[in-house]
């Protein structure tokens, strides 16, 4: 889980790369480094954020070719020595940045050590630098290249097992850098007289919108004037240029103190965008044109298997309720990293739905590859156009939330849910499970959601005040039932992620089967108590909690006059269709987590130990 960047062009490579690394900082930020190729290879590294690196790079550094890296440690602790780039040769001939994991690095390391290479770092990446050096120069003291960098790379890749996106420069081949990819994201940006490479398009969107997504096993030669792509056999390949419509500028904080708060607020317009053109109120129709399934195929579905991690997994849990309750399709949900190893039982009528914000989540991709090996049709729900999952799944539904920079997912969660609602109702319609009138009312209700979220945002002061009062508690519990059980889990996850308060979400009915032992005097218990079939049950859960002297913070409808009698604090949401209440309740919990973290002085957009898209397994 790291970010890599490469640049070849007319401008100062150092400043372009630093700029790009800052955009990638969300991928990891325990250390960073840069190599600039001028007359010779010059490498600079530092621990901490990119600004620390920027401070140690001399102003007068020249060079139009360079690579950079921002790291989130997997092998070896965060330190200057373990930071990338890793070099080989004395003086340095080869410099490598890497995102991914080399699985056989121990074996390679032993072999290279035996051949005289000296290792400085504890990383898996350093073996790649030495391995390349060996293939090009044949021994550690060799100073004359025996083959070209590209040829050397292609030979070295045959020995490497694992996942990687590499950017590499060689002192003896000035004016170019080479790239390679397997199972880690890599994208090339095409400028005028300059070209870019990065783990994520956001790195260079300030410079160009024309990009090429690099496929697995491809190698690339990048010069200021050209981009050449080679396949596994070393044959030159055709380039498929795509244009990115996103504004990365839109991903600047625009006056907000944190991306997270900005993105919470953006849910109003994000949901407008997700719904645009997909629903028709009067006809009671749902249009999902990207869905590659015929009515016949939808009717034949016997089972849905949802695969997701983290926040997306919570969205998927809600999806399970929806597919079963509305469409009457048996639905299972698994955490991707578990699914791969649990010998799934498959049948013919299964549809796999993979949910991943980035489309690059390594665990999710691995699970999708596993399930696709059973010939199971796969549908991806993702936010990133052109990401790896979009090229592997049979069909893709985009959440259209726009770039999300805050590590804690907010608007991508609510738009994922919107897609799941639409999909469940669409399946229900095709299978004749819902009356057209019900669907019409559902569409009217879902079209009200953006306005209702704005209504919650208008009263964010009440969430702020509540969060400030409880910011210094040791732990906090979240209760929900039915559709709001996944929302309780999500509320707890948000609080954990950004405020580091110990938080747990429980199904409210499960309380008495164990968790109730954890309750103490003064422990805040956030309980979702909006109107629905389980409302009465939730009220009795609130009484159970009150009886243990814990403090109940209830989320309830603004027309609910009862709840004030039982709960200590009531945070209100507008009246909505019961089915859609999770969409409103989650906004309250997002704001609660945000303001708790703010009151505790936490680094909200870049919480410790976390990274935005988890591209390692």
């Amino acid at each position, binding site marked *: 889980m790291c970010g890599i960047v490469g640049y070849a062009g007319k401008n100062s490579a150092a400043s372009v790369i630093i700029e790009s690394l800052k955009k990638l900082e969300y991928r990891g930020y325990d250390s960073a480094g840069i190599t600039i190729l001028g007359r010779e290879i010059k490498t600079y590294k530092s621990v901490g954020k990119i600004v620390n690196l920027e401070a140690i790079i001399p102003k007068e550094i020249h060079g139009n070719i360079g690579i950079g890296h921002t790291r989130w440690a997997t092998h070896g602790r965060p330190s200057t020595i373990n930071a990338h780039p890793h070099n080989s040769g004395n003086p340095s001939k080869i410099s490598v940045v890497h995102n991914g994991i080399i699985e056989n690095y121990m074996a390679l390391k032993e072999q290279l050590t035996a051949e005289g290479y000296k290792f400085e770092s504890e990383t898996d990446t350093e073996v790649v630098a030495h391995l390349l050096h060996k293939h090009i120069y044949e021994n550690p003291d060799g100073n004359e290249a025996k083959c070209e960098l590209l040829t050397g790379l292609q030979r070295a890749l045959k020995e490497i097992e694992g996942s990687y996106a590499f950017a590499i420069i060689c002192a003896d081949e000035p004016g170019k850098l080479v790239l390679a990819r397997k199972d880690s994201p890599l994208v090339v940006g095409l400028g005028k007289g300059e070209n870019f490479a990065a783990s994520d398009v956001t790195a260079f969107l300030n410079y160009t919108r024309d990009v090429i997504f690099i496929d697995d096993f491809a190698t690339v030669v990048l010069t200021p004037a050209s981009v050449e792509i080679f396949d596994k056999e070393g044959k030159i390949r055709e380039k498929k240029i795509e244009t990115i419509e996103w*504004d990365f*500028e*839109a991903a*600047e904080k*625009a*006056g*907000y103190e944190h991306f997270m708060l*900005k993105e919470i*607020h*953006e849910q*109003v*317009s994000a949901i*407008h965008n997700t*719904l*645009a*053109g997909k629903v*028709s*109120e*009067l006809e009671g129709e749902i249009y999902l044109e990207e869905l590659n399934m015929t009515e016949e195929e939808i009717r034949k579905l016997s089972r849905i298997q949802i695969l997701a991690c983290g926040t997306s997994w919570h969205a998927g849990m809600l999806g399970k309720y929806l597919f079963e309750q509305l469409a009457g399709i048996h639905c299972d949900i698994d955490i991707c990293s578990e699914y791969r190893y649990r010998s799934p039982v498959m049948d013919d009528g299964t549809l796999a739905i993979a949910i991943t914000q980035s489309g690059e989540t390594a665990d999710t991709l691995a699970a999708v590859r596993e399930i696709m090996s059973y010939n199971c049709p796969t549908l991806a729900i993702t936010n990133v156009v052109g990401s790896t999952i979009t090229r592997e799944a049979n069909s893709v539904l985009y959440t259209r939330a726009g770039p999300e920079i805050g590590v804690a997912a907010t608007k991508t969660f609510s738009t994922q849910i919107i897609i799941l609602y639409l999909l469940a109702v669409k399946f229900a319609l095709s299978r004749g499970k819902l009356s057209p009138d019900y669907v019409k009312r559902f569409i*009217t209700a879902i*079209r*009200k959601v*953006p*306005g*209702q979220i*704005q*209504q919650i*945002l*208008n009263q964010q002061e009440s969430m702020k005040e509540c969060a400030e009062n409880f910011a210094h508690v040791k732990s906090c519990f979240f209760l929900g039932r039915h559709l709001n059980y996944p929302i309780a889990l999500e509320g707890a996850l948000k609080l954990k992620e950004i405020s580091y308060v110990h938080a747990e979400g429980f199904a409210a009915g499960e309380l008495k089967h164990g968790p109730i032992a954890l309750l103490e005097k003064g422990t805040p218990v956030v309980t979702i108590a909006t109107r629905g079939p389980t409302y009465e049950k939730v009220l009795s859960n609130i009484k159970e909690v009150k009886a243990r002297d814990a403090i109940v913070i209830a989320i309830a409808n*603004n*027309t609910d006059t009862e709840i004030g009698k039982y709960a200590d604090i009531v945070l209100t949401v*507008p*009246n909505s269709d019961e089915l859609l209440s999770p969409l409103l309740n989650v906004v309250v919990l997002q704001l609660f987590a945000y303001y708790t973290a703010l009151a505790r002085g936490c680094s909200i957009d870049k919480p410790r130990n976390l990274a935005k898209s988890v591209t390692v397994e």
Partner: protein
Amino acid sequence: MKAIILAAGEGLRCRPLTLTRSKVMLPIANRPILEHVIDSLEKNGILEIILVVGYEKERIMDYFQDGLNFGVKINYVEQKAQLGTAHAIEQAKKLIDLEDSGFLVLNGDNLVEPKTIADLLNNYKGDASLLTVRMEDTAGYGVVLKEREKVTKILEKRPGDISRIVNTGIYIFTPQVFETIEKTPISENGEYAITDTIQLMINEGKTVTSVPTESKWLDAIHAWDLLKANAIVLDPAKDLRIEGEIEEGAVIRGKVAIGKNTKIRSGTYIVGPVVIGDNCDVGPNVVILPSTTIGNNVSIRSFTEIQNSIIMNDCRIYSHGQISHSIIGSNNTIGSGLFVEEKDGLLIIMNGIIHRAPRLGTIFGDDNRIGNSVLVKAGVTIAVDCLVESGNTIYKDLPRHSVVL
């Protein structure tokens, strides 16, 4: 040249619409007033904009972001306490280069056209320059006294017929103004007013000039002034585009713009100038007459007639409604058979002062739920988050969170 736009105030006199957003975000022809201002700056090549925000700043920041979609670069500074215009300008000091020859200051809630800005840019001189318009009725406006082009006295809003030359609040200052701002005394209202700063400059012998303009400058003082502004802006509106779908049998006359993914269903009759936003569902058999603006994600059902009104985002208006000369805030759900009465020359009392409104129906703030068959008497307003059950007649203003059973 950089521009500082003052956008921190609420706009008390535009309540209930400003209970949930600041006045600069009130829509005219489906764009916030502030967007018209920014657009006029952009057309004059002023691309670096400093927005001084405060009240409901999130709404402003959510909409304009970094300004890229509007062709400008926006920096935000927050005025935490609303202590007057001079104080607001002072908040932006760190973003103004003291070596610059001058910078522009204007209000985010006054509608201007590109030529208005150009008039000042082409004719400014001295230590400060201000743009003026001539008006017959100056009640509620600040005015100036002058000798030739030099301003001799500048006065804030006050009664009395002293001068017909109205101060638009659009200025060009040299960065030295910050020195005078520091010396500006607090006024009787407890504010640091930029007009007091300018008076201080005049007293110190600095050159303050005025530049007259006849180009468009509109100050929507009260909420109902928006209707007039909307009509004025819609009338000459250019490049109106029909991007949505119009079913066979719908009639579109005059200048009409229809946004993306919007559906105009059969039997609907629209007479421009009318602007309808994105993702709306209108009809079948709806009548929309001039000069009407309808926001994004709005549904309007059969047999409803809307005339000379502003309907903001996320509203649902059910069948058989009659809405005329009215402003409906965002996220209102309005049941079938809403009837809005309208009248000429209403006298409306706000904070003990009587105002005369032109022809007016009603004004709804945001987030109200109105039942079926509700009658709203002319000039009555419904604030925010009110619930009106079916069959009621609303005779008097409803404050926030009212419930009418």
